[in-house]
């Protein structure tokens, strides 16, 4: 039993953080720098990170949930505006269906953003939302088509625009009526258990993203509190400010412990246990991230409430990562259902 990174994982963590810091946005204006974001996307692709959950040849993924979470964490820390969790989750779904990778650049979600979207005919009949597909050119997102006792993968076309609150990752809303395109050569149907396991990876990756976001935004806030002077002294010398930042630091430490465990559980624990670990992690991380990001806005004072201050970029991204695969309220309700029984007598 050892919760520490292996030497390889520690090296991956260093590499990923360095890359994300080097190529991620430093300012809000940087988000419009297409050359930079292009270089970032190429670097992530060239590192092979989008292929982590491809089939290793025996049905298992090339890398575990831990490695995927290490990268998600590093990208979150730098609010890196590059698709990662979206394509990785898409590839994981394709692997489980025995399909070739790459037909879907992301996955379309139901309006609650908790479950993958399901379609019953040749076109969608409700709004759906493609999350974190690579931007810059039109692409496709996976959608589920019921068949027998399971699901088959299909795709919907997604243009390059984004409607979402997150300024660093694409979220494209597609109204009802989007045509459904078949995905060729799937060797098996996705079962409910496949989708549960897949959602566990989603919980681990969104939790890891929140960890990175919290760490990144706290670092900015501590630096700002040391630098910003009022009453002739740094505001970070006031206990009222110190205590906010200290509390945020503790939340991140606790959140990191649960998120690490969830990322390990994805491949190393039985599906039920892994899903529960993911729910615990997501419930804790989502609540913590809300507090930490709000603290960051507060410590940045008036500046923190302007568009030009990068802090809201973290908060906005945290709102999406919290909601994606279900926020703290949703996870607690699910934990209540499994641990406490149905609210009105045994089901």
């Amino acid at each position: 039993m050892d919760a520490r990174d292996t030497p390889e994982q520690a090296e991956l963590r260093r590499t990923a953080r360095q890359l994300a810091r080097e190529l991620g946005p430093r300012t809000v204006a940087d988000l419009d720098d297409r050359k930079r974001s292009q270089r970032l996307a190429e670097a992530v692709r060239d590192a092979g990170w989008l292929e982590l959950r491809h089939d290793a040849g025996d049905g298992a993924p090339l890398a575990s949930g831990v490695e995927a979470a290490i990268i998600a964490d590093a990208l979150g820390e730098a609010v890196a505006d590059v698709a990662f969790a979206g394509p990785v989750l898409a590839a994981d779904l394709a692997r489980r269906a025995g399909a070739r990778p790459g037909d879907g650049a992301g996955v379309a979600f139901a309006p609650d953003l908790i479950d993958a979207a399901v379609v019953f005919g040749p076109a969608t009949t409700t709004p759906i939302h493609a999350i974190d597909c690579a931007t810059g050119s039109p692409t496709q997102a996976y959608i589920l088509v019921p068949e027998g006792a399971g699901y088959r993968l299909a795709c919907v076309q997604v243009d390059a625009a984004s409607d979402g609150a997150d300024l660093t990752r694409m979220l494209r809303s597609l109204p009802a009526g989007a045509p459904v395109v078949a995905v060729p050569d799937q060797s098996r149907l996705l079962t409910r258990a496949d989708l549960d396991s897949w959602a566990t990876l989603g919980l681990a990756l969104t939790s890891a993203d929140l960890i990175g976001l919290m760490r990144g935004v706290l670092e900015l806030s501590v630096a700002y509190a040391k630098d910003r002077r009022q009453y002739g002294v740094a505001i970070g010398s006031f206990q009222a400010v110190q205590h906010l930042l200290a509390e945020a630091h503790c939340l991140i430490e606790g959140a990191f412990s649960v998120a690490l465990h969830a990322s390990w559980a994805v491949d190393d624990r039985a599906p039920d246990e892994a899903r529960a670990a993911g729910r615990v992690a997501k419930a804790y991380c989502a609540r913590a991230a809300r507090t930490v990001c709000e603290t960051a806005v507060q410590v940045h004072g008036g500046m923190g409430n302007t568009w030009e201050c990068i802090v809201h970029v973290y908060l906005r991204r945290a709102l999406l990562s919290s909601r994606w695969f279900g926020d703290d309220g949703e996870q607690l309700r699910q934990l209540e259902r499994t641990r406490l029984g149905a609210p009105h007598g045994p089901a």
Partner: protein
Amino acid sequence: MDLRDSPAEAEFRTRLRAWIAANNPGLPVSSTDDEYWARQAEWHTALYDAGFFGLSWPSRFGGHDLPSVFDVILDDELAVAGAPPRPSLGYLVQGIARHASQSIQERFLPGLISGRERWCQGFSEPDAGSDLAALRTTATRDGDEFVINGHKIWTSYSDVADWCFLLARTDPSVAKHKGLSAFAVPMRQPGIEQRPLRMINGITTEFGQVLFDGARVPAENMIGEPGEGWRVAMTIVSHEREPGELGYVARYAKMVKDLEQTVRADPGAFGSEQREAVAWAYVQAEMLRLHVCRRLSERLERVDHGPGGSIDKLLMTWVEQAVGAAALAVAGPRAVIDTNDVGLKIYLYSRAQSVMGGTSQIQKNIIATRILGLPAA
């Protein structure tokens, strides 16, 4: 990372599980009942005699020289069985092992670890709480002995202790942090008066006040050098703040398990706010379990005596108070109808966690200045 048991860990777990199944004393939750404290010594020696306590400590002092993560397994199994947590005294072991002479270590560590000799910790005073270095208890040299005069308070288990790990002023002429020394003071002697302290939830056997009026301690019982008392105390309090040292994971797991059982027995009787409070307490307790696993894994490399204990203390406080809030929520009106309600007692006791071992405000000061590097106020 790999959280699976190694073959040696798995064998240990199996052996431990069988032993707990046969030897669980079924004590009430520590914070709710004087019976827990009355029978805690018995539990300590039983656990020790079976070879399940002091796992990572040196075998020459009665430990087992095992890797630090074996304590994670111990906490896990105690929690699963709903057994009492392991005795909370690792911080005294850390303090003695780090600062005391070889002869003091050999004299005191075996009895402390085995539970054959009971200890309390005499640090806080009525006028020296958060400002611990302002303490006024004196230890004055008299031949081969020191004479102790002063008043200690919030002293856990003082009434059953054989020894007191005492912090006293030995040199009033120097700055307040520099004039302190630490001692192992025998408790069973004239010149020591015990006064029990009743907690807000009614329990009387955990905390005490101790009055020293000419009590004596051999000079050779000094722990560390003269004037080293503050550094000794800081080592101890930093570890006293670590749930991994205290073994509190099993304590919270047991309380959450009891709350879950209550709700599961009659789910229709509990509303959504009560259910959410219990689920959140579960999430918090799980967080602490996994956090302690990470911390004790880091110890496979080395023991950190630094300010990190303050982080763990705040996390632990939030867990205890989330559990306390859930206990109050589940109790519903019973908590005000019956002063002996267990939920009420758990809730009231949980308010102490943000004070004992250093208030949450002190922890935040330490984290802000010593970990985040913010300028001192």
